[in-house]
């Protein structure tokens, strides 16, 4: 009897291994999707109406819902909600958007990855500072098939092609929203906006009063000092990341100019407040809306806020927007550049294959012309697909051509791993300069040394 029972168990084990082996060899669900069919990717996603790829039904059969994290409250993201609804109409897969406050979003994401949890299918992330770290952690599902059409890159601004591909040659991220920064100013005080940073600095000195600063920028929140630094570095044609050595570089000639100008505005010109050390990028936007700043650089989406007198009581419609300044008159017009911000989407490698298929389909939709249209027209973000700006409806948004040009000129740099810690070091030493704990250029040199020490070993 015992021998028979043993033989039965052995047989079961062999059968189980055979079935499991067979299952392992069959195509994974997401491999059933033919991304270049019925049309090449660029045509499928690049037209006014998104076209689902062949094979999607079999790939996502049985998937009822995907969970997608979102930066902040959903009431500020009407386009995201509409896009999610549209995706559900097309595929029957519900998109459950998880509104996560910005401050703990990275901590939540890392917790889920560290636990190897399938709790969330798709994560939003800040591309410049977080992407390479997430890739290095081995937590992301590769997305190469989504980009397997050489023509697809022509839909987007140039930097995206190089920004998404990582050191191992693969792509792990896709586009959620894109933004750049532009110069907002008060026409009643500054009838003609400055075209260069040098001009802006002089103008800021002249217009500063006890009740209103000439220029305000962020140096207080997590990562926020990197915005004004990058803008000024790019306006000179410089870069903040040494791609070859995977290092942040701030003591370049362009970095030194930027650092000096920003510190001089506070310490010498007194056209910017010392309380820049308390401001995040949202705080800067608040300062302009309260009528306490004549000029700021902020995201284009803030135009929606300033149009509403209730949300911007201090300016009451007295605002205008123009392209980011270039450094000075010797620089070409293509240096009217700010940073290319990608709020990306990435797929959790720990979810099952069917969920991955549905998640990939969602990412495919979110980077399409149709989704970009909603981002631009409904929400006021920028359009990842550049041709959306040529749509007649684009004339309804403030300065569409200037924004299109700003997106074309914008620079996308991806920080090396530990990017968020590196921006903290920049914040630390910049604060030391503003707080007069160190001379500004001494602070910059020490900052660079610490950045070099922190960098990931080669």
């Amino acid at each position, binding site marked *: 009897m015992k021998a028979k029972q043993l033989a039965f168990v052995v047989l079961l084990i062999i059968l189980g291994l055979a079935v499991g082996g067979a299952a392992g060899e069959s195509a994974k669900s997401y491999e059933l999707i033919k991304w270049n069919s019925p049309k090449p990717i660029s045509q499928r996603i690049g037209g006014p109406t998104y076209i689902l790829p062949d094979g999607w039904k079999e790939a996502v059969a049985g998937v009822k819902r995907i969970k997608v994290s979102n930066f902040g409250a959903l009431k500020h993201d009407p386009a995201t909600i509409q896009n999610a609804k549209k995706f559900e109409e097309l595929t029957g897969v519900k998109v459950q958007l998880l509104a996560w406050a910005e*401050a703990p979003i*990275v*901590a939540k994401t*890392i917790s889920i990855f*560290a636990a190897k949890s399938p709790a969330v299918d798709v994560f939003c992330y800040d591309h410049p500072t977080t992407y390479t*770290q997430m890739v*290095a*952690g*081995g937590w992301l599902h590769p997305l190469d098939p989504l980009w397997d059409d050489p023509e697809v890159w022509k839909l987007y601004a140039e930097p995206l092609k190089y920004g998404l591909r990582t050191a191992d040659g693969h792509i792990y991220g896709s586009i959620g929203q894109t933004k750049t920064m532009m110069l907002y100013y008060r026409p009643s005080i500054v009838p003609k906006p400055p075209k260069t940073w040098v001009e802006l600095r002089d103008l800021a000195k002249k217009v500063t009063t006890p009740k209103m600063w000439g220029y305000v920028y962020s140096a*207080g*929140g*997590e990562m926020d000092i990197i915005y004004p630094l990058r803008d000024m570095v790019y306006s000179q044609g410089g870069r903040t990341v040494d791609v070859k050595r995977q290092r942040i570089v701030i003591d370049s000639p362009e970095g030194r100019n930027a650092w000096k100008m920003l510190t001089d505005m506070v310490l010498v010109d007194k056209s910017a*407040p*010392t*309380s*820049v*050390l*308390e401001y995040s990028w949202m705080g800067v936007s*608040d*300062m302009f809306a*309260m009528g*306490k700043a004549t000029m700021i650089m902020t995201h284009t989406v803030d135009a929606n806020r300033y149009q509403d007198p209730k949300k911007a009581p201090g300016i009451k419609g007295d605002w205008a927007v123009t392209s980011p300044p270039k450094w000075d008159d010797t620089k070409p017009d293509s240096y009217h550049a700010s940073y290319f911000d990608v709020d990306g989407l990435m797929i959790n490698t720990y979810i099952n294959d069917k969920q991955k298929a549905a998640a990939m389909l969602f990412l495919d939709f979110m980077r399409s012309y149709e989704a970009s249209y909603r981002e631009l027209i409904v929400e006021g973000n920028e359009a990842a697909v550049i041709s959306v700006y040529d749509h007649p409806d684009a004339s309804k948004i403030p300065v569409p051509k200037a924004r299109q040009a700003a997106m074309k000129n914008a620079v996308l740099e991806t920080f090396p*791993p*530990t990017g*968020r*810690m590196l921006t*903290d070091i920049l*914040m*630390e*030493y*910049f*604060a*030391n300069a*503003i*707080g007069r*704990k160190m001379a500004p250029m001494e602070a910059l040199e020490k900052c660079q040394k*610490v950045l070099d020490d922190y960098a*990931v070993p080669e």
Partner: protein
Amino acid sequence: MRFSGRWYGFLLNLPGLVIVLLWVLFPAFLLVYTSLLRYDNVRPIVFAGLGNYIALFQHRLFWFSLQKVAIFCVSTTALTLFGGMALALSMARITKGAWFFRSLLILPWAVPAVISGIIWKWMFSPDFGVISDLLMKVGLIDTPLSIYGNFDMAMVGIIVADSWTRVPFMGIILLAALLSVSPVLYEAAMVDGAGALHRFAFITLPLIKGPAMVGLLITTMFSFRTIDIIMPLTAGGPGRATYVFGYYIWDQIVKTLNFGMAAAGGMVLFFMTSLIAAIFVYLSRREA
């Protein structure tokens, strides 16, 4: 089948044992184990022995953050003790409507620390904060006051904000202790001519020392590892002026993604809070 007393007791304790294993011992074991790994989410995970601890002790921000947390902890605990004592002494004298005032006392403690931090940040904002505005209106300052953007004032600001949330807890403990002191002792002391200060020093303090030590211990341990109120206020800035040790560990996890170093930092934090607890227990037992 009949259980013996021993086995019956064991079975009844089993759920608690499972909870202790799952929520205390297993995570503690994982913490120790992770602290011995090179787990930086960039290179392969390998056993590193004491490598993380050595790197920790050599890190430029390790001793710096310990210094900051020592200042923060001592100051917060002291302010909490004095504030709690003042409140408890006042509340002890209230008879009519005592329930109402005691409910008010609890409110700061009920507010989540992050919300509390946001409220304090708004109040102290140089641009739209009420405190800066009031001080300017009464002529005490000429220019807006920037607390959380000021190197020298930021630590004071977070101490005040954190103490505000802890005073109710201390106040409740001390109030309970005060109310347990027999009024006969005070009456006898007054008959003997003891003034208020004498009565406080020689009757009140000795008799509430035990509960006060418990309150101090808990306050010290919690403030030693606090970061939740610091995050919205200063994010450890400006220029690391409020960069306490808990923040250093947080950054290892969230910004550097170096779980090995973070675990090593966690072990150091565990030993230091245990040391604090051991000191308090020793002092309490010595008194007893």
